[in-house]
């Protein structure tokens, strides 16, 4: 049994062609930064105890203050990691046989869902900048649509050239159908892929 990705406003005759999240490296980079922040107080405390020979007796003010501070600090870091995860995983770019949908989670209370019909797409560009992006094969895809100055930007997605090519193939199919006079605003989806 196949399970197709569902998103708000999906139509019954709409087929999902590609579901894109940001590249995993973006999330890992944030987590590594937080891990570094998690190690700093432990390392600093160890060095301080070695240098001053101070002993923190259980139940003393020093011990209590250190435990409470570290608890609050690690709670904060843990919440940040979960926030990064949500930001990574709930930001979704969906390409269907009818349209492209960009779902962006912005912090706790912000969520943007932007969509555009495939037949309105005029230009698709992909770019990969930097050593890491080139090595790990991630980059941005820019989709220019008719009548709008604003572009759709799929940021830090894996295999941007493949994504751009797939969008162009879908728009070409719609254009062919329009020329053939059988247009219903949908493209016959190519082989389903996930990148």
């Amino acid at each position, binding site marked *: 049994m196949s399970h197709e990705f*569902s998103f708000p406003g999906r139509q019954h005759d709409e087929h999902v062609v590609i579901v894109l999240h940001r590249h995993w490296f973006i999330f890992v980079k944030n987590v590594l930064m937080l891990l570094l922040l998690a190690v700093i107080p432990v390392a600093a405390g160890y060095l301080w105890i070695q240098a001053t020979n101070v002993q923190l007796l*259980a*139940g003393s*003010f020093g*011990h*209590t*203050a250190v*435990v*409470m501070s570290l*608890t*609050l600090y*690690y*709670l*904060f870091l*843990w*919440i940040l990691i*979960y*926030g990064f*995860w*949500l930001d990574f*995983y*709930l930001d979704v770019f969906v390409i269907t046989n009818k349209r492209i949908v960009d779902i962006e*989670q912005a912090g*706790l*209370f912000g*969520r943007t869902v932007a969509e555009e019909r495939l037949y309105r797409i005029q230009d698709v560009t992909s770019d990969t900048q930097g050593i890491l992006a080139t090595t790990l094969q991630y980059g941005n895809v820019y989709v220019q649509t008719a009548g709008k100055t604003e572009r759709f930007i799929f940021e830090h997605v894996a295999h941007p050239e493949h994504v751009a090519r797939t969008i162009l193939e879908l728009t070409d199919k719609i254009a062919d159908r329009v020329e053939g006079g059988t247009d219903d605003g949908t493209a016959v989806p190519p082989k389903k892929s996930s990148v």
Partner: protein
Amino acid sequence: MIEFPAIWLRYVFFFLGGFLLLLALLYLQNGLRHGSRMSLTVMASGFFVAGLVAILWMSFTLLNQVDWSSTFSLTLPTFRLIRFGS
């Protein structure tokens, strides 16, 4: 040297910890509302809650030995460069 009841420190800790737990709850609610149909979000949320419980459990275990009815005394450092009065 200043002296203050130990329970004051506990109140401050509960206030700040409560604020962070409220924030965690908001994140959790937000994550599950938008990602409840995504299995990875549910798993990550479970892992997140387990982490919260682990941090709090360790904290309360370590703070178990504190006598909250006592007072803490704190020796302030002497400021050699700044002197008030004569």
